[in-house]
């Protein structure tokens, strides 16, 4: 299943609806559904925030490959942003020392089994693999 979404936070309900079709069709567990929604939202909103000038829509595809779900997000006209190369956050800091930013990607890396990133022809391609319960 593949669909394109306008580059806006307001697209999130449509993104969730799209994911819901896959979740229902594949009868995913609540835990897998949560992880898939979480990773999709965090990457999608990251592209909305940090690549706002691109006129292109953002494409999502989600497929099942045996016992895994494969989520692919393609952003056209994008500068390279490799989430796998982001420095680790220090989450043991006290409340007053914590700063916003980076938490969503950190959590995706913690929750998703495998994240691959390619930057080809000015396109960012994120491929996430999640082993299903």
């Amino acid at each position, binding site marked *: 299943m593949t669909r394109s979404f306008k580059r806006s936070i*307001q697209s*999130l309900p449509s993104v969730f609806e799209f994911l819901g079709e896959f979740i229902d069709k594949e009868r995913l567990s609540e835990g897998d559904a949560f992880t898939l929604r979480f990773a999709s*939202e965090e990457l999608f909103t990251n592209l909305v925030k940090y690549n706002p000038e691109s006129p292109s829509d953002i494409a999502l595809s989600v497929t099942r490959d045996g016992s895994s779900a494969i989520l692919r997000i393609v952003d056209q006209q994008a500068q390279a942003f490799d989430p796998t190369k982001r420095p680790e956050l220090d*989450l043991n800091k006290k*409340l*007053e020392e914590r700063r916003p930013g980076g938490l*969503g990607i950190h*959590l995706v890396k*913690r*929750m998703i089994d495998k994240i691959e990133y390619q930057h080809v022809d000015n396109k960012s391609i994120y491929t996430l693999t999640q082993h299903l319960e």
Partner: protein
Amino acid sequence: MFSMTVGQSGEILLSGRFDAAQAEEALKTFNGLTSSAIVNFKDLEYISSAGLGVLIATQRRLKNTGQELKLINLNSHIRDVFRYARFDLIFKIE
């Protein structure tokens, strides 16, 4: 779908999905809080980092005046997210 209601006792009940599309409106409501409160997650299915950001901003503001949020009835998936984010160090969670 997300909703946030404040009960007579002052307890805040969250329900649905607390995602980035809801964060701005939710923050306006949380900004109205001036004293400690219980946030009940009983009917909350999902939260993303945007929702976590609203809660941590509120906790930081309240703690400056000696007040705080206490979180109850988190489902197992949301509880995992809080644990991964080490928010269990920042909030009282029951």
